[in-house]
C-alpha cells in the first residue's frame, strides 16, 4: 500500500496537467480584436463631461516684447475627454523623444517652446498601455476646429484650435514639419497609431495633431 500511493498521485496529477494544458491550448487559440475608440459622444456631451477650464485667456505676446510664458501644468481636450497633468520630458539616449512612463499622463517636451509662446510646443502621450487605453487613445478623432486648452503654472490658460490631424509612418517622420520653427504660437500633440507590430511591440505610425493658439 505505501508503495502504491505515489504512483496513484502521479497518475492523477498527470491527468490534471493534461486537462489543464488542453484547456489552455484551446482557450488561447483565438485572436483578440484591436480595441477601437468608440465614436465621440458629440461636442455637447463631451463638453458636459469635461468642461472647458475657466481662467484668463492670454493672447500671445507681441513680437519685440515677448512676455515670459509660464510652464504648462495640465492639458484639457473636452471632445475626447482628456484631462491630464503634464509632466516634463527631455530626450532619451540616442536622441529620441523621451515618453511618459505612465500611459495615462501626457508630457511637454522641455526642448520646445512653452505652449502659448511663439513657436511649436510639443506634447506627447500614449495611445495605450499594456492592457488598455492611454491618455491619447482618442487623439485621432480630433478634427480641425476642436478646442485644446493648456493650463499654466501661473493659472493662465492658453486656448488652441486644431488645424489638422496627420498620420505619419515612423520611418518617414517629418521632423522639420513637426518640430521646426513657427512664427505663431502652435501646439503639436503626438501619439502612436496605425498598425501594431507584435514582433517589435511598436506601432508603425505616429498621429500628430496640429493646433494654433486662438487670439
Amino acid at each position: 500500500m505505501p508503495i502504491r500511493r505515489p504512483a496513484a498521485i502521479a497518475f492523477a496529477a498527470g491527468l490534471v496537467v493534461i486537462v489543464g494544458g488542453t484547456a489552455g491550448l484551446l482557450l488561447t487559440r483565438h485572436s483578440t480584436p484591436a480595441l477601437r475608440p468608440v465614436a465621440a459622444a458629440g461636442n455637447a456631451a463631451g463638453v458636459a463631461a469635461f468642461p472647458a477650464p475657466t481662467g484668463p485667456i492670454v493672447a500671445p505676446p507681441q513680437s519685440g516684447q515677448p512676455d515670459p510664458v509660464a510652464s504648462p501644468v495640465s492639458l484639457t481636450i473636452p471632445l475626447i475627454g482628456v484631462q491630464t497633468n503634464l509632466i516634463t520630458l527631455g530626450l532619451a539616449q540616442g536622441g529620441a523623444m523621451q515618453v511618459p512612463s505612465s500611459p495615462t499622463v501626457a508630457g511637454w517636451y522641455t526642448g520646445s517652446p512653452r505652449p502659448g509662446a511663439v513657436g511649436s510646443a510639443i506634447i506627447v502621450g500614449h495611445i495605450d498601455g499594456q492592457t488598455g487605453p492611454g491618455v491619447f487613445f482618442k487623439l485621432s478623432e480630433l478634427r480641425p476646429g476642436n478646442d485644446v486648452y493648456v493650463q499654466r503654472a501661473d493659472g493662465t490658460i492658453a486656448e488652441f484650435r486644431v488645424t489638422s490631424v496627420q498620420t505619419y509612418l515612423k520611418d518617414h517622420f517629418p521632423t522639420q514639419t513637426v518640430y521646426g520653427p513657427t512664427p505663431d504660437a502652435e501646439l503639436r500633440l503626438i501619439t502612436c497609431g496605425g498598425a501594431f507590430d507584435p514582433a517589435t511591440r511598436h506601432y508603425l505610425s505616429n498621429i500628430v495633431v496640429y493646433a494654433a493658439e486662438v487670439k
Partner: protein
Amino acid sequence: MRFPKITRRITLLAAASALLFGIPAAATASASTAGTGWIRLAHLSPNTPPVDVYLYSFGNSNAQIVLHHVAYGTVSPYETVTAGDYSVAMRASGAAPSSQPVLSTSVNIAADHAYTVAGMGPESGLRLQVINDTLTTPAGKSLVRVIQASLKQQSVKFHCSCGGDIASKASFASVSPYAPIPAGTWTMSATGPSSSASLPVTLVSGTVHTEVVLDGANGLEIVNLEDAAGAGKPPVGGVTTGFGGTAGHGPGSPLPWVALIGVGTLVALTGGLRLRRRGVGRRLNTGI
C-alpha cells in the same frame, strides 16, 4: 480602352496600398492644411508719419486685415492667412478706406512660408518691400539678421559678442542675410558714424530673430524680434507612445501548452504503469 483600364488598376492598387500602409490620412489631410502661410506688416521709414496698413486677398476689395495708425518702428505679430496672392496698401493714418493708397504692392504667400511686408526708405522714396522670413534653423543654433532702418546713421556695423559682425556695413533700408549664432545671451551692438547702441539678447537654439536698428529719441536703438521658434534639438525619428494593449494580436504560440500536455502525459503514464505493475504482482502473489 486598354490604357484607362491599366490606369484604373494602378489607381486602385495605389489606393489599396495607401490604405494598408496608413498613408491616406497624411495624403488627404495635407490637402486641407497645405493652405496657410504667415504675414506681418511693418513701418520702418523714419520720417514717414503713421499710416493705416491694409491687407487684401487678391481680387477682393474688402480688406482682410487693417492696422490703424501704424507708426515708425512698429512690427505687427504674424497673421495666419490662406496661401495665395495678396496686396498690401498704405494710406495716411485716418484716410478713407476707399481713398487712393499712397503705396501698394502685391505679395504671393506660399503655404508654410512667412513674410514681412515693410514700408522702407525715406519718405521721399518710400517703398513697400516684401521680405522672405526663414522658418528653418541649423541644428542647435539660432538665426539672426539685421534690418537697418536708421536714416540718421546711414551705415551701421552690427556686431554680436558671440564673436563676429552680423552686418559689417549695413546701409539704410537694407536687410542682412541670416547669420547662424550659438545659443546664449549675447550683447548685440549697432555702431554708426555718430551714434551707437547695444542690447543684451538671449538666443535659444531653434529660434529665428530679426534685430531692427532704429532712429530713437536719443540716437540709435535696437529692437529684438523673436520671429519664430521650434525645438532647438529636434528629437530623432518618431515617438514611441504605445504599448499595444489595445492593438489586436494573433493567437499566442501553442508550444508551452503542448509541452505541458506532454509532461502531464509522461507523469500520468509513469504513474499508471507503476500502478499496473504493482497490481499484477499482487494478483500473482495472492493467486498462488
